[in-house]
């Protein structure tokens, strides 16, 4: 992200001079004489108060070289060179190396190893100072996104020079979103204006927006404004804001619930096939999810420069790897145990321990780091009070896609037909020429592969470690049993509704109790309807 356009140097310089004249007004009333050459080395002082003092003075300096220095500092690109110690800007060049630039002379100091320079560290107070300084500076940046963020930063500021800068920007701002927030930022200080007319005007501007700063500023007016008309306007504005906030909160809870539900559905849907359709109690299901997550890790490690896309490649890879493990388990163990659920339970439980230990031995007993690609980080702002996180959003969509794909496989393919035939009546299917043993292998492979795909999604949300599967096995069985064994739709509805129920209860019951309540509810529900939400009908029910 290049924040400065160096090709237009004269423009940058005038802008710099203007902004730092502004900052001088914000931080100090009198200008200090210390030159940049004297101030800069002080950023490498040992204590934070000393660094803070240097930073404060730098921010008030109107030297045009300062903005580039502060930007570098904010981005962690300012270093103290260890040989012949001076402060330098270091930009990562080749891996492990830094290209050093003297911030005072813009001279290129050549490339050095990253370890030969010490990064100038910051604390929160310095970061806040920097953030404000840079926000003033960014207010008339060429990029509207940066302008928007800068204006957002200014909400609640009532320093006259900052307001003047906002006013100036508003006069020339063309992007609506930025204009809106500038108007709000300018209206906020008016809430404390002496003139009741100004206060009323400010309230009417703020009445319909959800920025917490606006709500917080309205509260004192609604409680105790001397002017009754202002007071009633504030009360009205506040109640309108609160109404909108309530709706935002409900939407948010619903999203959280669906997102939790989508994780449950993903974890359970493979089991819905192996347990639901085939009737195999597969205690190693969680470990198949884990194998999928580890495959994601391995794919990511193998393709370090493809971070943004390797996860897409990991989806088929995880499917294949987990499916192969599933087929191996089916061929070597489960096929000898069909019709003996207790033995299957114990044997697959043993397999789950073996798989965990395999990972511990060959990869690591520690959790591994699976990176989030850039497009899955951050959130999508719907309004100032509601933002949907991208990772959760994509996983929700992904869960639905997996569900639809699986439904199509079972409904529209020859394999699906054979699977349904074998699960409904094995003897009859065999009599009709279906090779039931082969179908068993493929079905188990399919269910295992889907578990692996779930692992890819889970690796983006939670820890990837040898034990991760254990966290999902119980939830998976719960969802499948609640939804009705042998019914994919049941799994979808059960997963999503359990997720939403959990999230609705969580705010008042707490995470621990909400989980307990959901379990109690399911126990009671199963007592009443042992076959779950969508019990199999007709002849299959007897089989």
């Amino acid at each position, binding site marked *: 992200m290049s924040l400065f356009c160096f090709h237009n140097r004269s423009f940058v310089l005038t802008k710099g001079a203007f902004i730092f004249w502004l900052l001088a007004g914000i931080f100090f009333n009198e200008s200090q004489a210390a030159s940049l050459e004297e101030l800069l080395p002080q950023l490498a002082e040992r204590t*934070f108060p000393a660094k803070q003092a240097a930073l404060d003075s730098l921010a008030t300096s109107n030297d045009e070289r300062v903005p580039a220095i502060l930007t570098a500092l904010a981005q*962690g690109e300012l270093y103290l060179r260890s040989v012949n110690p001076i402060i330098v800007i270091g930009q990562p060049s080749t891996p492990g190396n830094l290209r050093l630039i003297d911030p005072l002379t813009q001279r290129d100091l050549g490339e050095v190893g990253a370890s030969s320079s010490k*990064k100038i*560290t*910051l*604390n*929160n*107070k310095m*970061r*806040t100072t920097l*953030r404000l300084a840079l926000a003033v500076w960014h207010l008339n940046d060429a990029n509207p996104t940066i302008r928007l963020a800068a204006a957002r930063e200014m909400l609640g500021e009532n320093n006259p020079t900052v307001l003047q800068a906002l006013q100036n920007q508003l006069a020339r701002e063309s992007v609506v979103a930025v204009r809106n927030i500038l108007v709000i930022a300018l209206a906020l200080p008016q809430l404390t204006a002496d003139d009741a007319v100004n206060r009323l005007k400010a309230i009417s501007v703020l009445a319909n927006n959800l920025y*917490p*700063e606006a709500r*917080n500023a309205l509260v004192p007016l609604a409680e105790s404004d001397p002017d009754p008309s202002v007071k009633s306007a504030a009360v009205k504005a506040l109640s309108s804001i609160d109404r909108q906030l309530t709706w935002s909160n409900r939407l*948010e*809870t619903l999203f*959280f619930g669906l*997102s*939790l539900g989508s*994780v449950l559905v993903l974890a359970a849907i493979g089991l819905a096939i192996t347990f639901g359709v085939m009737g195999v109690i597969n*205690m190693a299901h969680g470990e198949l999810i884990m194998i999928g997550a580890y495959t994601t890790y391995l794919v990511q490690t193998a393709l370090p420069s493809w971070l943004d896309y390797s996860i897409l490649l990991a989806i088929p890879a995880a499917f294949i790897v987990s499916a192969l493990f599933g087929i191996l388990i089916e061929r070597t163990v489960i096929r000898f145990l069909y019709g003996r659920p207790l033995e299957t339970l114990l044997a697959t*439980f043993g397999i*789950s*321990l073996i798989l965990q230990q395999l990972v*511990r031995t060959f990869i690591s*007993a*520690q*959790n*591994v*780091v699976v*990176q*989030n690609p850039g497009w899955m*980080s*951050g*959130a999508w702002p719907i309004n100032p009070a509601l*933002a949907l*996180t*991208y*990772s*959760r959003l994509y996983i929700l969509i992904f869960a639905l896609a997996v569900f639809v794909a699986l439904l199509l496989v079972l409904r529209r393919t020859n394999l699906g037909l054979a699977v349904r035939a074998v699960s409904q009546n094995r003897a009859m299917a065999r009599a009709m020429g279906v090779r039931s043993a082969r179908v068993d292998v493929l079905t188990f492979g399919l269910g295992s592969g889907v578990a692996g795909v779930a692992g890819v999604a889970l690796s983006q*949300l*939670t*820890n990837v*470690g040898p*034990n991760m599967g*254990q*966290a999902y*096995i*119980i939830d998976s*069985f*719960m969802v499948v049993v609640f939804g009705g064994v042998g019914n994919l739709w049941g799994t979808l509805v059960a997963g999503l509704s359990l997720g939403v129920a959990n*999230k609705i209860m*969580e*705010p008042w019951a*707490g*995470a*621990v109790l909400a*989980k307990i309540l959901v*379990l109690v509810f399911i126990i009671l529900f199963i007592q009443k309807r042992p076959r779950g939400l969508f019990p199999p009908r007709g002849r299959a029910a007897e089989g």
Partner: protein
Amino acid sequence: MESNSLIKKLIVSTYFAVSLGITFSSQAAEETIKVGVLHSLSGTMAISETTLKDTVLMLIDEQNKKGGVLGKKLEAVVVDPASNWPLFAEKARALLEKDKVAAVFGCWTSVSRKSVLPVFEELNGLLFYPVQYEGEESSKNVFYTGAAPNQQAIPAVDYLMKQGVKRWVLAGTDYVYPRTTNKILEAYLKQNGVASNDILINYTPFGHSDWQSIVSDIKKFGSTGKKTAVVSTVNGDANVPFYKELGNQGLSAADIPVVAFSVGEEELSGIDTKPLVGHLAAWNYFMSVDSANNAEFINTWHHFIKDERRVTNDPMEAHYLGFNLWVQAVEKAGTTDTDKVEQAIVGLETPNLTGGIAKMLPNHHITKPVLIGEIQDNGQFAVVWETTGTVPGDAWSDYLPGSKDLEADWTAPIKCGNYNTKTKMCLGSTAK
């Protein structure tokens, strides 16, 4: 539904009971002093505890290079309690009865310490416990080389108060350490004039992974215009999704800082720390501390573990201090006899890794500096605040009504873990 994991644990533990009953190496030829290492090498706590096992092995190795203790070589007896709390007690009993170890270095979670405590008291063993904990305990047989609440939690809250924090979220994992610590912190905050509706307390299960609503609640709680901070006693790997969610929902440290008591360098080595820059941790040691002792310790560690990327952390320093104090005490007492070592060790001093001195106090806690660090983008902490000297560990919190008057002193004439200074009575080691 939890029964499944219970069955698993049972099977795992029987498995390990059989396979690891046979312990590491022996040099039968010459007489050695045996040292027990009681850290989980499998299960959920393996992530943190494996490193501590390696630390003790390294310390023993170093000591043997210097000629051992009392002219004898030290010999490590490593067992694996497999993150299974009852198994900790069994393994401790085996170490003391069968292997006759002179001292045990071990445990991480408070629940494992509570599990082995009666064993150490019954068999009169010595346990060095290296992790920060909730206090409210002092046993004759245990030396607490990690931080007591007044050496970590209270100073951290003081620091945040000085930064102008007015609203507090106390978030923790649902077990004894977070609950007790939060009880102490709540009492402390209220004594400092914080209103109850400015405190939000939240507990989550071990390994919690869906932090959406909690982070969203924190965000709302912090949007009232008053400066808000989160005090996190969230333990183990649940921290990873917690911090990820903080980053995704756009809560930066400049808005709402999170100060953690269980997140150190080791835990951060499993996360991309860019979104976490500026969040805080309170410890008594950071790897980034610039001191000659620390540089040497890190160097020895890298040499021993044969991996330059491995980090050091606070509980490792605690073991380093505990081990050195024990060696000194044995040399001073001239024997490894529990009672003599226990008396000799009180008052002994050893340099810590941050440039100060750790002194064993009569209440079996040690003096420690308190450091507050901010997470940097390389996974290390930059110290932003530290106490001027060291802080003596206090077993019984001064902020809880039940333990205000209690004092621990294992020297004559009191010799008691919870001596009531008002009634002049001793109530036994852990009575409430």
